[in-house]
């Protein structure tokens, strides 16, 4: 039974979105990737879920502002292992244009183990799909 579940779970990782103080540019691109039939991320077996407890692949946007940091870390701990983390946009990866600001505590990999980076301001939906494909490859090895 466990083996069967593992086999099925490989084909259907669920996505969860965390906004760590993003400007919403990357979030709009993430919504585009999922909701517009032209890009349709559900072809890859992925599906956005509303609860962190159901998540397999975590997509993080935003530079981790000082105000949201504790909440993001608490939310991240709620996501069951194994999980794959994808940083979307330049902000979570390096801070981007907000780097060295007093309001920023990132880059996010100081606090959270990141697996895939998708830089861009914001990245194209196709680039996000590239990142998710890479994350699915990692997800298959972790199960």
């Amino acid at each position, binding site marked *: 039974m466990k083996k069967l579940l593992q086999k099925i779970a490989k084909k259907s990782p669920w996505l969860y979105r965390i906004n760590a103080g993003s400007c919403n540019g990357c979030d709009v691109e993430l919504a585009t990737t999922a909701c517009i*039939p032209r890009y349709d991320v559900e072809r890859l077996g992925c599906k956005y879920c509303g609860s962190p407890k159901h998540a397999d692949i975590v997509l993080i946007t935003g530079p981790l502002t000082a105000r949201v940091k504790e909440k993001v870390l608490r939310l991240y701990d709620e996501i069951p292992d194994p999980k794959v983390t994808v940083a979307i946009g*330049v902000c979570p990866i390096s801070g981007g244009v907000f*780097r060295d600001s007093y309001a920023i505590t990132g880059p996010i990999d100081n606090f959270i183990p990141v697996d895939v980076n*998708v830089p861009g*301001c914001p990245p194209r939906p196709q*680039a*996000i799909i590239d990142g998710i*494909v*890479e994350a699915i490859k990692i997800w298959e090895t972790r199960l």
Partner: protein
Amino acid sequence: MSSFLKIAIRNLLKGPSTDTYPYGETFVPKGLRGKIKYNAKACVACRMCEHVCAGGAIQIREVSDKSGLEFILWHNTCAFCGLCEHYCPTKAIRLTEDYHTAHRQEDKYRYVEKGFIKYVPCASCGTPMVPTAPELLNVAYDNVNKDIERLSKLCSKCRKEKVCG
């Protein structure tokens, strides 16, 4: 009702609108601002790109053995705004239409565009200097003649002496 049917039939004939990417090819709009390409041969090291870079992604610094200048652009903090291309006098820095930016964490700090400008000695006094790119001469002069080419091989000090006496 009839208008709805018209749309339904048209959609049936047109087929799915989903892009086949990542299994197939996708479209790239013209003028997409993607990964940056740097041409060290055309660069005159004016450092304008470093100055205007919104994300602070560009760094131009002298290498440790003082044989030239090193250009480093880290794509992971680049906002792909295109200011560097706009302000570059010789168009040595260009934004390509390559948007494939996804990479693994272990490559995070290797995700850079690099270039190296080797110093050349001044034709008169031998002081190491940044070579003058022909692209810059084309920007500055309508027609580049032998005199100008000879002057471009001199360092700023020798050039001043030669021109002003």
